[in-house]
């Protein structure tokens, strides 16, 4: 922090009289906090490179896009951009020269961010050390490499316009809505996509498959959404990466590590309040399979041998360390992709300052066949009051393939 103050003072002091320093400092720090809330760093910082210098490969259904260099390098970054240019990119998805940005940059969400907030983010980005890092920003295959095609895309999927508060709702609800629907761009992962990669507004926040993970339903749905989570549960999850029910991992683990664990509690509470109050929508729960179904008895045996030591017989796990399977939203998502990949490939929970222990789920794919993975998942999805469609060996085989393809390892 000392170093930051010094940097801010130096930058400001060079051009302006000393009395201006506090204002600039507040503006920069506000921008830093907003950039954190937007999790800009996640896409704009590739592993091992300077922060915000861009070039990280973003997987999309249409190919890989590399993120922009946001440092103030004049040639390869956004050093030549004005605050107006930056606002236009955020608000309209257009570069200073008018060309279209791809919606992998989530401008359909960022358009809701206020001018004052984009100005603060801009001020913060100007304080970064400029990094020369040319990025090939046009790596998509034909026909997606034609940026003009985005005119048609925007006509279908994009409504520009800053977010407007709902006067009938509390300030906290409105703050939460602003963060979730705007800067936080939660829907970019958590909302199903149409065929051309736009968010399906009619199924907003009802869950989506992305990069062989399920971004689950985060409406108030009782079975697969946040219906059984309290505001405190949500806040604790976003702040620490876990709560007594579950642990964050995969892409959401990264979001928590880089973004939400650094956000102020008031903002996290606002997000939680909004998600809890805005309503519920989800699939109709199927009837659970009978306990004597052959898939259930086979699954139970595998569970006893392989899973029970940590997740315990009642499926309730160990609070904050081994997630509860009983009543779990992730376990009961209609689409079992996350469950399959976690059992086959293993995973590691997010690590945060408040919860530094990042326990791992071991990979079991090397010793459980597709039918065994299917049976044990079918068992946990239909035990202890859980209700979800059975998993087939074919489901497991296809997730195995896609995970192996993504990680470059043989399946």
């Amino acid at each position, binding site marked *: 922090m000392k170093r930051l103050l010094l940097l801010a003072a130096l930058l400001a002091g060079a051009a302006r009289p000393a009395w201006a320093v506090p204002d600039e400092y507040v503006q920069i720090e506000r921008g830093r906090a907003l950039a954190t809330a937007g999790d800009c760093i996640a896409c704009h910082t590739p592993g091992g490179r300077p922060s915000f210098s861009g070039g990280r490969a973003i997987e999309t259904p249409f190919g890989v896009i590399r993120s922009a260099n946001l440092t103030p390098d004049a040639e390869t970054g956004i050093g030549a951009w004005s605050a107006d240019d930056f606002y236009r990119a955020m608000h309209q998805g257009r570069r200073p020269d008018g060309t279209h940005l791809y919606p992998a940059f989530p401008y359909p969400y960022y358009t809701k961010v206020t001018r004052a907030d984009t100005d603060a983010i801009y001020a913060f980005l100007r304080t970064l050390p400029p990094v020369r890092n040319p990025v090939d920003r046009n790596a998509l295959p034909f026909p997606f490499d034609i940026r003009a095609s985005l005119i048609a895309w925007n006509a279908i999927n994009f409504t520009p316009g800053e977010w407007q508060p709902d006067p009938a709702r509390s300030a906290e609800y409105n703050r939460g809505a602003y963060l979730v629907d705007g800067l936080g761009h939660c829907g970019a992962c958590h909302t199903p996509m149409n065929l051309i990669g736009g968010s399906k507004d009619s199924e907003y926040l009802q869950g989506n498959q992305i990069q062989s993970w399920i971004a689950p339903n985060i409406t108030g749905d009782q079975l697969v959404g946040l219906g059984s989570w309290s505001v405190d549960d949500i806040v604790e999850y976003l702040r620490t990466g876990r709560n007594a029910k579950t642990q964050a991992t995969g892409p959401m683990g990264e979001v928590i590590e880089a973004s939400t664990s650094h956000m102020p509690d008031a903002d996290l509470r606002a997000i939680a309040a909004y998600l809890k109050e805005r309503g519920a929508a989800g699939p109709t729960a199927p009837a659970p399979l009978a306990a004597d179904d052959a898939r259930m008895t086979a699954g139970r045996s595998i569970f006893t041998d392989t899973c029970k030591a940590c997740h315990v017989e009642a499926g309730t796990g160990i609070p904050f360390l081994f997630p509860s399977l009983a009543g779990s939203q992730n376990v009961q998502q209609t689409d079992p992709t996350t469950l399959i990949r976690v059992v086959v490939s293993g995973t590691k929970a997010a690590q945060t300052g408040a919860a530094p222990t990042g*326990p791992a789920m*071991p*990979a079991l794919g090397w010793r459980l066949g597709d039918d065994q993975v299917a049976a044990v998942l079918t068992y946990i999805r239909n035990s202890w009051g859980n209700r979800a469609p059975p998993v087939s060996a074919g489901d497991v085989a296809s997730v195995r393939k896609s995970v192996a393809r993504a990680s470059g390892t043989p399946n």
Partner: protein
Amino acid sequence: MVRRLPPKDVVIVGLGWTGSILALELARAGLEVVALERGPWRDTATDFNIGTTPDELRYSIRHELFLRPRQETVTMRNTPDQLALPIRRWGSFLPGNGVGGAGVHWNGQTWRFLPNDFKIRSNTIARYGDKALPDGNHIQDWPVTYEELEPYYDRFEYVAGISGKAGNLKGATQPGGNPFEGARAREYPTKPLTQGYAQDLFTKAATERGLHPFPRPSANISEPYTNPYGCRMAPCTFCGFCERFGCANYSKSSPQTCVLPALMREPLFEARTECEVTKVNLSGDGKHATGVTYVDSQGQEWEQPGELVILCAFSFFNVRLMLLSGIGQPYDRDRDEGVVGRNYAYQSAGGSTAFFENVNFNPFAAAGSLGAAVDDYNSDNFDHTNLGFVGGASITCAYTNGRPILYRPVPPGTPTWGSAWKRAVKDNYQKVTSVGAQGSVMSYRDCFLDLDPTYKDPLGRPLLRMTFDYKNNERKLSDWMSDRCDEIIRAMGAKTTQKTPIRGPWSVIPYQTTHNTGGAIMGDDPKTSALNRYLQSWDVPNVFVMGASAFPQNAGYNPTGTVGALTYWALDAIRDRYLKSPGPLVQA
């Protein structure tokens, strides 16, 4: 060519329990800290996968977590007139290697030494007279008391989440705990482990004999726990893969479960693994350490300057590094002077084993520290008049494991192979239990560590030589304790028993214990100790030396609880006093 690195505030040698605790606390105090660890990086999520960790062949037989004798070993002899030979395969003890050190592969028994253990010389003389001390002994009072260490035992136990039952809370005896223990300020952080059938029999028999059984304090913990660093642990599943293994369940306290998750987030901390420190560098007058020299895995030699050097390696290797660096006067047994290498000690043992009928002890449902114990025969909790020895033992009925390769108890007289042996293994697996004594070892002029005149490591540096055997004091103790164990196991219902006292010279071959203590001991007199009461070198005040190498002699307990307490004790001295005014904390 040696390449010189930018200086750090603190250089820590060895990243086990003591190194990781000091690194975390000193980095949080604002110091730039580097830890140099000669073994590999290891963490629970990556290296101790539940699907692969319970592998007895890999870890227990092939010693995956231990130091490779080819990299470094010790030479050994029983007496000063013998020629020492190098240990080429670890047996009697198993020095750890890699991040976490011995804190990865221990069983987890976490004791506090008794108040008398810290005053054993003066208390023995006061109660039994000068003649009670054994011939040739070097027994010394510790330069700290139990009362001084109590808050630091507490801190370590709460970081490690230890499971147990207090027997003495602020002087008030607690039912179910150890009534002989020193007063503790508060309860253990987690409740005691659930005991098995054999422990229930032991508890009943011991109680009937007027003894005071209690559940052994355990680092295989009993319930979910979050420690003061925010690190989280899960309850033990009694899988029985503790000693020689890393714990995959986040259930055994270790640097990996209790410290490293917090430490690795510290921006002022850096760990360098597979870097072997070869020397602590001293200023021209030998009174100030300027840093260390180390060799990385590519064979490149580096100089790492530092303001403060803290040796946190295993006891042997702290002593060897001091000898190789010229820190403190080497111990000379013939002239009985010098301090580095003085007072090496170990652990004595004894016990009684019995084969029961019609029982299922389920030895596989085990934990490294599962067990019921009595302390009635430890330290000076009993009258030593006419017994012919000083010291004592903790006596325990325990199952650490029932693993398939090495746990094959058969009655005496069984053939060692063939169908009769197989039948006996099958018939007896469920029926065997034992009551064992873990005893103190006093310090002697003839038990010490020095540099071997013949054998060298691959870098050309002399190996450490140990000279050790059990003396009459320990042999009498072992005989007497084995009788006490036998009485208890017979009261548990055993018809035929087999006593297991110490016989013959001490051997490096069968596994006994990795409680190797002394060699760089703490004391009040620089003529008889290498370190002052804050574990600071008398001779080079910006060098501190952690670990069991500081014990003046060994008590009838596992050392880790006391090692942890001494670490926090030294930490407070370093952080609150040394850093404000670097220099000797005790005037010689």
